[in-house]
């Protein structure tokens, strides 16, 4: 054993302390640092270039006869001007419907899996399903909503679009709510039991309020995801040239408008698609920043 360790390093002769790192090691270190920086640049490049392109192509249209883009309806082909007020309203409405469905279901699911069913078969199964659901392609969520809402109601509608989005929002909300519930120390739960609180009293008055920052984060993340989805809306919410008069009618959304107008052979429509893209990215970034500030206010 000792003979081996003797041979690992050369003996340091007195007076040979040299502050210079051998050039091979130094260059290798520089190379690796360069590589890491290069990767970072490559990673930021797509976002940077997207934002640059959006600003370059969308900004001018957005502020050309402001605020008509935000107040007017999409123009017919070969007509100048117009806007996408109906699509902004439509995106907000479909996302709201999605949130109204997925928030209660998602939060209560998380409460079951963490608070009451911790580790049992059912909650493990729910976990597994949540993971699968979060990997389901969004167009499949659209097909699902088409099957259960559009076919039964007989037409495309804002409700169908909201249901499709709720399927995509659900796993995000469940997962963040679960994270929030897990962050609460088990001592607090024992304390609740110790003072004679029922499960409902404990969860409703102490556990859930302490989880709120996480739930708010999950909700905003889910909204950001849903606001940008196109595929599940194509055959659920469809599109509408006008303001939808009820939730049972097809409704315009920003993402579908971008899809339709970007491939239209008209310059005005293409410009509107750029402007809409800028609006939707700005919306998602605002929501993401909002979720950051909400997470910062953690209780534990």
């Amino acid at each position, binding site marked *: 054993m000792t003979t081996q360790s003797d041979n690992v390093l050369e003996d340091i002769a007195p007076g040979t302390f040299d502050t210079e790192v051998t050039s091979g090691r130094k260059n290798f270190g520089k190379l690796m640092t360069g590589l890491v920086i290069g990767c970072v640049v490559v990673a930021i490049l797509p976002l940077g270039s997207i934002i640059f392109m959006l600003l370059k192509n969308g900004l001018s249209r957005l502020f050309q006869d402001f605020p008509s883009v935000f107040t007017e309806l999409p123009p017919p082909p070969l007509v100048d001007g117009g806007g996408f007020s109906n699509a902004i309203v439509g995106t907000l409405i479909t996302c709201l419907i999605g949130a109204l469905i997925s928030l209660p279901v998602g939060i209560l699911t998380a409460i079951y899996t963490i608070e009451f069913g911790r580790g049992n078969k059912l909650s493990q199964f729910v976990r597994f399903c949540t993971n699968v659901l979060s990997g389901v392609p969004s167009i499949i969520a659209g097909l699902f909503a088409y099957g259960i809402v559009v076919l039964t109601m007989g037409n495309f509608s804002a409700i169908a679009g909201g249901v499709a989005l709720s399927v995509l929002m659900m796993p995000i909300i469940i997962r963040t709510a679960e994270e929030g519930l897990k962050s609460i*120390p088990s001592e607090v*739960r*024992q304390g609740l039991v*110790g*003072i004679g609180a029922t499960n409902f009293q404990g969860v409703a*008055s*102490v556990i859930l*309020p302490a989880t709120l920052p996480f739930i708010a984060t999950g909700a905003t993340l889910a909204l950001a995801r849903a606001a940008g989805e196109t595929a599940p809306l194509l055959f659920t919410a469809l599109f509408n040239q006008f303001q939808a008069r009820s939730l049972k009618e097809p409704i315009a959304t920003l993402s579908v408008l971008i899809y339709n107008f970007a491939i239209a052979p008209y310059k005005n429509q293409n410009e509107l698609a750029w402007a809409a893209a800028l609006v939707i990215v700005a919306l998602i970034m605002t929501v993401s920043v909002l979720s950051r500030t909400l997470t910062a206010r953690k209780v534990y």
Partner: protein
Amino acid sequence: MTNPSTRPNPSSATLSEDIVITTENVSIFYGAFQAVRNVYLDIPKNKVVAFIGPSGCGKSTLLRCYNRLNDLIPSARVEGKVTYQNIDLYDPKVDPVEVRRRIGMVFQRPNPFPKSIYENIAFGARVNGYKGDMDELVERSLRGAALWDETKDKLKQSGLALSGGQQQRLCIARTIAIEPEVILMDEPCSALDPISTLRVEDLMHELKQRFTIIIVTHNMQQASRVADYTGFFNAEATEGGSRFGYLVEYDKTESIFNAPKQKATQDYVSGRFG
């Protein structure tokens, strides 16, 4: 050493007081593992009873069976009979939530709720249906836990902003606010500094006028300072290699520390092991 299950019942004979809790031949299991074996032990009213013994001897497990906190662990099972006011606590008709309203608990680590100091106390009272003057109850409970002077100007602040010792006294205030008859304390001072510990111990002397206290402690000096009765628990290995805890001796605190009847108790209290 003889098998403890065949050893004569080491408790009860010495007690001639009002009994509030009885423990008859209680064994506690986690799955197939037996954590506590054949305990007989009676808790007298308005006294402080300390459970001492080395780690893993089942004293906390036994404490938690008095307010059915072990119910939270799915694999835990209690055999034998635990009665409170002559009612079998493990009768299927008994609601564990109701048990915990009568038998409060203070935990090892201070665990105030993420609410204001005021709400920490008001919440417990409210869930138990308290309808009286809440301000008065909060003040009375904080005074009872010797915390009023330090917190009267900041009742709206979060309970989590207090120091560890203050948090633990807040938890005691929260427990006495629901007016239980018995307070279980699971190593309440193990996370506290010596000065905070002293304050909590002083508090226990006052609290026993109104409550019965059962305290689990690793600290033998603490047991000798606060307890009227002391139970010494020890752990022993079975043939299979797993360990179980059992009650070695239960008597007046002076007897346990000055004239123990069992050699294991003598060895433990004199610091020869544990």
